[in-house]
């Protein structure tokens, strides 16, 4: 998803779409706390990641297209920020669907499991090199 596996028909279970691509996960996280338009998603991702992730329009809308096709996000008729720029009426806002919320939760749970496994194995934080191996 986001990388493009919603090609043939809609998936039935959130697990069918996992793992999400980093782009798809970032888009879903951006929409987790409210509806946003494309530029708003770009800004949210950039701010949240401290500028490390900058989505270009091609990357963003490729992901939006696939997420929409998979029923993970949908267009919203709402205009959450009435004081926006004059052309804002023409902007399209996106929101997580119920299914999209389940997909995001399943992916976060999957990542959480990975982090816990890494902790158990002492790989998180990174293990210090032993004196013999140095």
């Amino acid at each position, binding site marked *: 998803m986001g990388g493009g596996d919603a090609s043939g028909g809609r998936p039935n279970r959130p697990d069918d779409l996992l793992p999400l691509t980093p782009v798809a996960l970032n888009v879903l996280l951006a929409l987790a706390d409210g509806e946003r338009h494309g*530029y708003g998603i*770009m800004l949210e991702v950039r701010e949240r990641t401290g500028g490390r992730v900058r989505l*270009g*329009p*091609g990357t963003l*809308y490729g992901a939006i297209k696939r997420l929409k096709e998979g029923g993970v996000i949908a267009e919203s008729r709402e205009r959450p920020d009435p004081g926006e*720029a004059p*052309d804002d009426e023409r*902007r399209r806002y996106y929101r997580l669907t119920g299914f999209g919320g389940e997909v995001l939760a399943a992916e976060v749970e999957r990542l959480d499991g990975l982090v816990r496994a890494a902790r158990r194995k002492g790989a998180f934080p990174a293990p210090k090199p032993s004196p013999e191996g140095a």
Partner: protein
Amino acid sequence: MASPRGPRPRGHERAVATSERAYRSLLRAYPRGLRDEYGGEMVRCFRDLCREELEDDGGGLGLAALWARTLPELLYTALKERSTMLARNTYRSVVGVALATAFILLLPLLAMQITDEVVWDLADFVFAGALIFGTGLTYVLVARKAGNIAYRAAAGVSLAAAFLLVWLSLGVGIIGADGDPANLMYVGVLAVGIIGAIIARFRPHGMARVLFATALAQASVAAIALVFGLGLPWSPPVEILGLNGFFVSLFVGSALLFRYAAREQTPAGAGPEG
């Protein structure tokens, strides 16, 4: 998530407008579906990014940096979108045509169980399968690009003619008996059509000319066979004229349909464009 706002210097707005125009024209790299659905949004996003760069970083350097980030991203994502679309559509087409081919090949297989008149060996099935599958897949891929029925009909007629030409010339021989080397002249006829179609990029205007040229090549083969008395005594002149005339009429008919398709072409176009 506010858009960059407030009074903007005129120079900035000119730079934004120029960048926006350039970006809009570069969007042609993307498949039409994505462009039609999200092109306007992408341009709007890019315009916002341009304004932000000019206002926050104060000038052309920020804008240049944005372009330096955007161009590779655009190239990469356009290739990715196109390859995804191609893989998706081609997979469906291949499966559909393969099933149809298998169904058609069942007919001679069943006939062989019923009558001794039909005797196909493995090579016959392989040859027929490859020919049917190749023709079918070509039709599906070409017709998918078509913007109107005339174009599809033209493609169908020309491919049916090419299919029959290969089948008859290699299978039983149009000139003389089976295996007469004179039939190899039809390879030239097909080459005119195939190479011409590639040069014309399957656009209806060009395809009309290509099919007229193919008809001319077909007529030339008949003329050569008649002048040099090829295929005698198995193929009398009337038979050569009749069979080749049939193919000439198919190719000319296809050319006329392509010409009609070119006139009917809507802005959506019948050409193989994005």
